[in-house]
């Protein structure tokens, strides 16, 4: 399994660069992943990232965009403004949780 180093922490990742062990994440790691993706994180970004993490920890699945919008108060249009080009995947990547998947 490949690994990458963010903020001095070596983390295992899958072929697409998603963390495969969410417990190795910390906020500095998240910050470094965001920089690599060309994102400058604001408090609004963090609201979404923090929710994705706590929800994943509780339910074992990465939340969908509607669920994130409903639970953070950040609207759908704003989610796309904050994470243009695929917010579902980008938030998952920065938050160190799996990308949204189907059963197949």
């Amino acid at each position: 399994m490949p690994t990458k180093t963010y903020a001095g922490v070596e983390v295992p990742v899958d072929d697409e660069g998603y963390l495969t062990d969410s417990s190795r994440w910390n906020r500095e790691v998240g910050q470094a992943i965001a920089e690599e993706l060309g994102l400058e994180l604001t408090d609004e970004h963090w609201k979404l990232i923090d929710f994705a993490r706590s929800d994943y920890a509780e339910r074992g699945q990465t939340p969908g965009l509607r669920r994130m919008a409903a639970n953070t108060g950040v609207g759908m249009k704003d989610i796309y403004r904050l994470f243009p080009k695929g917010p579902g995947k980008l938030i998952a990547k920065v938050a160190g949780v799996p990308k949204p998947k189907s059963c197949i």
Partner: protein
Amino acid sequence: MKTLAVLGAGTGGTIVANRMRKRLGKDWRVVVVDPRDQHLYQPGLLFLPFGRYEPEELLRARKDTFRSGVEWLRSEVVGIDGEARRVEFAEGEPLSYDLLVVASGVRLRPDLTEGLTGPGWREKVFDFYSLEGASALRAALSTFEGGRLVLNVVENPIKCPVAPLEFLFLADEYFTRRGVRDRVELVYATPLDAAFTKPQAAKKLGYLLEEKKVHLVTEFMTSEVDGAAGHLRSYDEREEPFDLLVTIPTHSGAAFVERSQLGDELAFLPTDPHTLRSKNIPGAFVVGDATDLPTSKAGSVAHFEAEVVCDNLLLAAKGEEPEPLFDGHANCFVETGWGKALLLDFNYETEPLPGRFPTPWGPFTLLEESRRNHWGKLAFHWLYWNALLPGRPLPVEARMSLTGKELPQETTEQPERAEA
């Protein structure tokens, strides 16, 4: 006299009611609530648009689906008072219960997408997850002479997540047989980043879209549908034109879940993933599509969950704690057209793997097309009415087995389980 109340008599609720009637003593009433007179065999909706079933073939009088001794209340649930252990109805006296099972499935919510039910709805914009939608689509397909057919999954979760792909594979066969395939463009617009998102499935099945000439549009989150102009728009401002739109609308849980403020943002019920106990209704379990669990919303899952819930209801009736028996097991046939299908078998931990799935009728092929799988899928229609709903045993265990499955290199740390 004690009461077990079961809300919803679809796949999961009917199995639970019938099995519990046999297993609980005469000191228990088993009351199942459902307002609709008929039970619909939903897997048949996939074939209906292509003229392979008549609507009547998919319906049975609900009264004939219950074992004797099960009481059916033909009412619509409008609320649950968890503290008072009472179910409320649109009309009539509330029902007090000792144990409760919520099995109210999903509601299709085209109303949650702007424009979806506007101009063109059921004229050139169709769903096939309802009997009305599938029937209207059948008429439209029979006169479709060419153009761009877009299948759009608005958002997840949806029930039977493979049905949209199956629809496209069957459409490829259907238009080929009608001699118009070269004039029809088939497009799959999905909010996910691929048609197959699990590594083994992607590896084994990637060829299918190419073979069936299905054009893939990924990460498409529909914000708006304009039926009159014939296009879909996404939140990132892409536009997909269509001559015929087949939509899988947003799914939500039942309205009473929302009204009683028991569900999540889409009214799915917070459920313990292994015991299937409700996280917020005392004395209640949840079965089938109504849960918020990270496994497929499918009839097979409702069936396996129903078995676990029955065991746990018996424990609860004795005042004992429920057992964490459910593993997320799902078992789904995927039609690929031209008389073939493949089989998926997976759970919370194990992605769909290739290999063989043994049964008394011979092995089905996992992640691989075969004719036997197709016959398995069709035979399931008979089994559904005659074995599954009455609660008779079927030769598929509630818990997933690794027997016959080929493990990928990286997950072979536990070979003793593979041989079990």
